[in-house]
């Protein structure tokens, strides 16, 4: 982890304690999680006690203190999606990837999360794959999506790109 990069992100937020959440979003945007070393730097630069930075990083669901997988699969578990069968997707992903929500596959390729409503309720059930929304999903469609993603990964590694 390049501490200079973190310092440059923090440069416009020196001493601004109210910017903590935005700063954590930016850091996670770069590293795909919040490294401990970065958080020490955040505490130092913003002037926020380390325990408070740690608290905020743990409180909000968007932040992860553990490295996440390459692909983030988010299942919407809002009321409308629940009523339209979202719980089945958790079963499907258990079958496909052998992990529960909140976990990452051992090869670090997939992380599964749930989110309590993304606001696209009329088109539920919704699954978000890496910031792309997929509407009117079913267990079968989800299986196909996971398989397609795995295929694409295999292709890129075959061609030598990572």
């Amino acid at each position, binding site marked *: 982890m390049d501490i200079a990069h973190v310092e440059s992100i923090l440069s416009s937020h020196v001493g601004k304690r109210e910017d903590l959440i935005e700063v954590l979003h930016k850091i996670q945007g770069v590293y795909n999680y919040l490294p401990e070393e970065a958080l020490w730097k955040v505490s130092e630069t913003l002037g926020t006690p380390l325990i408070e930075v740690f608290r*905020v990083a743990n409180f909000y669901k968007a932040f992860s203190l553990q490295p996440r997988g390459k692909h983030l699969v988010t299942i919407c578990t809002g009321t409308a999606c629940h*009523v339209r069968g979202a*719980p089945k997707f958790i*079963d499907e*992903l258990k079958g496909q990837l052998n992990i529960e929500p909140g976990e990452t596959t051992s090869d670090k390729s997939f992380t599964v999360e749930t989110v309590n409503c993304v*606001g696209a*309720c*009329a088109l539920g059930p919704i699954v978000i794959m890496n910031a792309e929304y997929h509407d*009117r999903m079913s267990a*079968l469609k989800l299986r196909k999506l996971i398989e397609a993603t795995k295929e694409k990964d295999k292709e890129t590694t075959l061609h030598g790109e990572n």
Partner: protein
Amino acid sequence: MEKINIPDTLKSFAQRKKSELEQYETVITVPSGTCCQAAGSLPVLLSLQKAVEKKKLQSKVRIRVSGCQGFCEQEPMVVIEPGGIFYGRVKPEDVKEIVEETVINKNIIDRLLYADPVSGKKVAKEEEIPFYKLQDRTILGENKFIDPCDIGEYIARGGYSAFVKVITTLSPDEVIAEVKTSGIRGRGGAGFPTWKKWEECRNAPGEIKYVICNADEGDPGAYMDRSVLEGNPHAILEGMLIGAFAVGATQGYIYVRNEYPLAVKNSRIATDQARELGLLGKNILGTGFDFDIHISRGGGAFVCGESSALMESVAGKVGEPKPKDVHATERGLFNLPTTLNNVETWANVPLIIKQGGAWFSSKGTEKSTGTKIFALTGKIKNTGLVEVPMGTTLRRIIYDIGGGPQGGAQIKAVQTGGPSGGCLPTLKFELPVDFEALSAAGSMVGSGGMVVMDDHSCMVDVAKYFLTFLQDESCGKCVPCRIGVDRMLEIITDISEGHGTMEQLDLLEEVSEAVAVGSLCGLGKTAPNPVLSTLRYFRHEYEEHIKNKRCSAGVCRELIHYSIDKEKCNGCGLCLKACPHGAVTGKKKKIHVINNELCNKCGICKEQCKFDAVILS
């Protein structure tokens, strides 16, 4: 863009913009809010842009990318003016025909028209579609005419003229008086009279004050605020400008939940453009009024929709609600006087100033004035956003506008108000939707979510779902909510798994009372509502789970059983392939069998079977 330095120049700017837009012969609006994009509106948009370019029609045809228009069931859709021709469920492949036939030759493509689910008739004009016709789309209707990323369109529609009226002709007290005449009550759920909040804040001692827009909209099933903020952010900016003037604030915040990235993006663009034009910042329009707005992004916490928790979050802290012995209007954000209102409340403010408080209060009921946007979802034909005057009955919303049940089932209940609300059975559908009536019945208007459930929903499971949600989202500070909700969930889980007792039902009610009385914040205080309302109207379902260990809706996994009908199974193997738990065994063309030890009752096999051979008992 050049800055507008005096109020009068706004009018000429608006004129210029209007004439600019009027030079186009045809305007095609492509709604591209989050849900529209999820349905695939972007490929349609791209095809449309390419097709227009190919036919060299750029100077004659304008493509407007708008926000959500609320008729989500039909997305992706396009609306073509003049004529208001509405095409639903459009695919990129249809675009070529649309451009050739409708844009150039002015012909209507029948197969893309909306067909009314009740009469079967095709409707060509958007304004004739029953879903829209039965609504009063005061706020939502504007989305059609506006590209949220172009402040010019908002101004051309008369935007910011209400603010100009306020800053040049009205005093803060007069503004508050107009809001009082309108009778508007907070649209976020609590229904607190808006004028009262503003007046308290105005009278609070202190030089520095804040106005906040609560765009946290955490209620699952509610997305009205998202659509308004994404599709017409300037309406909120204008509302906040007026509010800031009325209470004496110089800084505003829009707190947008993290799960709404497009709303965050569009509101940032809007504030940037407003600042460029001189409508935000120092000495706005040369009047000496300073005000700016910062967009704060949430981190993923439902409790941050609670006003004191939201303010903690804006301050960069953990979103834990604070005791409300002193109102936020006296000590709120950074311990200074703060006025916090919901997105929809702010969006109504410019209209109230422009058309008058009396206009607003002429709609709705005596105590609940104006219109309200509802998110109608679930097992219903026309899912989407519905804006109606307060006091409209549930029946009208669900059956007339919503089109009735989907899939041939019977509607059993409607859940309103999100996790703070409750479930109302069909016999309560004559109730008018207003603050008092729904609260008296055991639910609440809340932020506006309305989820329709049919007899495939188990009400014990619904209560369990909401308790699980609240347990996950509780901040955990106070005992009644942290431990109480958890204990309630413990009892309901026992009931849903078939080992509940009738004594536990009594205990459940007792704990519910204590949680409602003793909790620190609104999340905890209203947490028992889903349980209490389902106990009130669907007690028989609880008793059935306890006494007969049966779940009639076929939902509670411990009480259901999947098996394969030997007569109907033809050994196609689809269920075997689909089962994520490896619980189905069988050879090709031979009858398949479900292993009950491995079966997790997810029901995916039943979904796949084309021969109706999977039995749910």
